[in-house]
């Protein structure tokens, strides 16, 4: 009897120390409580004004520690079942899909994009790595609301470019030599999407995000809209529930491994997390890696998010969408929002999350 109990206790300890992975759904860990959790709540979910649309407007906040949910809250009408628009998080998702293709030896970082996407013959020396660094050198205007007349993004998504977004981008003139300067560009991300189509052929490409990434991770509710040429809009239009996006976060937290399977080569994740050499501090809100954003000190400039660890990296999107990964803290955080002004601060949210998860 006593021996039986001992075995049961041992078994329990062993299971508790095993590495949890989400199966059909996530398992629940010890939920965050106390004043620090309340402070996090207060920051993320202040009273919401849907008329003025001012202030911080979080739609979803989900925190995963060691592969288990420790915090989850939604604001109506978003629920755990809402495939929420991720906007530019889609870029990091396409990079992750490309990582699987990279593991299948379908391309090398030094390959010219034109090898897979002929319209890029106009810019023959732009490589896959240049596009992944948003450093194609193409003259792209990323502004959304403030310069709608000149905005390349608005033209690409809604007017002149919408039939074939990659071609619209490839037809842009050059402003600097490829690989030499960071210039954030939704166009670069859509050319990446078109190169993947070139590697796979149209038929395999249309299923590839699902077969290569979503299904292995157990993601059942993904939508990825494409343009009229049936190229996925890698810059903007992937939709996932918060719980499903967190699966991609966990994959990245664990260096591209899902269970026993190394889905992304470690080398790929290292590339994603390596700062782009020619980035100048202050050019953007965080440091660009390979289609992911990094919290790294570069050229003597402080970390973009001073209260978060230096190994923090993120996928970020318009109007407050974010997937943060902190490998050393074993944390994955999904934050969806509808922020129409600039009041939301990544650093403030991360600071409060870190305070709330302290034992």
């Amino acid at each position, binding site marked *: 009897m006593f021996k039986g109990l001992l075995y049961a206790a041992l078994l329990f300890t062993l299971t508790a120390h095993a590495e949890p992975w989400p199966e059909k759904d996530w398992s629940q860990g010890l939920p965050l409580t106390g004043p620090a959790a309340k402070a996090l709540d207060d920051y993320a979910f202040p009273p919401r004004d849907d008329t003025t649309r001012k202030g911080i407007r979080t739609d979803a906040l989900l925190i995963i520690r060691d592969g288990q949910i420790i915090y989850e809250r939604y604001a109506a009408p978003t629920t755990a079942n809402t495939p929420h628009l991720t906007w530019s998080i889609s870029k990091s998702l396409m990079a992750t899909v490309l990582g699987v293709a990279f593991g299948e030896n379908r391309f090398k970082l030094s390959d010219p994009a034109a090898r897979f996407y002929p319209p890029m013959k106009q810019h023959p020396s732009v490589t896959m790595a240049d596009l992944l660094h948003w450093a194609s050198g193409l003259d792209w205007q990323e502004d959304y609301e403030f310069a709608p007349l000149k905005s390349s993004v608005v033209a690409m998504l809604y007017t002149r470019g*919408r039939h074939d977004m990659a071609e619209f981008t490839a037809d842009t003139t050059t402003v600097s030599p490829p690989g030499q300067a960071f210039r954030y560009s939704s166009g670069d991300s859509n050319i990446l999407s078109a190169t993947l189509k070139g590697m796979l052929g149209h038929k395999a490409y249309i299923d590839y995000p699902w077969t290569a990434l979503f299904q292995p991770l157990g993601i059942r509710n993904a*939508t990825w809209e494409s343009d009229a040429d049936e190229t996925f809009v890698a810059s903007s239009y992937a939709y996932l529930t918060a719980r499903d996006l967190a699966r991609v976060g966990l994959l990245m937290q664990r260096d591209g491994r899902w269970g026993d399977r190394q889905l992304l080569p470690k080398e790929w994740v290292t590339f994603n997390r390596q700062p782009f050499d020619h980035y100048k501090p202050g050019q953007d809100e965080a440091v660009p890696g390979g289609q992911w954003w990094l919290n790294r000190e570069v050229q003597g400039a402080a970390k973009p998010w001073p209260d978060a660890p230096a190994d923090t990296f993120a996928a970020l999107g318009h109007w407050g969408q974010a997937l943060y990964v902190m490998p050393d803290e074993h944390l994955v955080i999904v934050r969806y929002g509808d922020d129409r002004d600039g009041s939301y601060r990544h650093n403030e949210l991360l600071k409060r999350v870190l305070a709330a998860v302290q034992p």
Partner: protein
Amino acid sequence: MIRRHPFISLLILLLLVLLGWVWHERVNLQAFPDIIAAYTAKEYCSCRYVEGNPADYCLGYVKQYVPTSAFSDNPEKHRVTASGLGRTHSAQWLGQREGCRLLP
């Protein structure tokens, strides 16, 4: 001419600059009025049929400073049409994976 009609000369110069700018930006200016109708149709369609949010929420979600003049949503066909600045655009929901797309 310049000395005798300084104001008219200045006006002509400004007009020439303006015409030059219009010519320079002709492609952008021609496409500009399409933005509001296309944006409203596409993003409403996705809000409603991809994200599955209520209709009144989605109307608020797509609201911009530029007003739309007409709007219709056909729930049976999953087709959304919006007009603004004299242009009309429609978006169609294509399926669970495919989501919405602007019609040509």
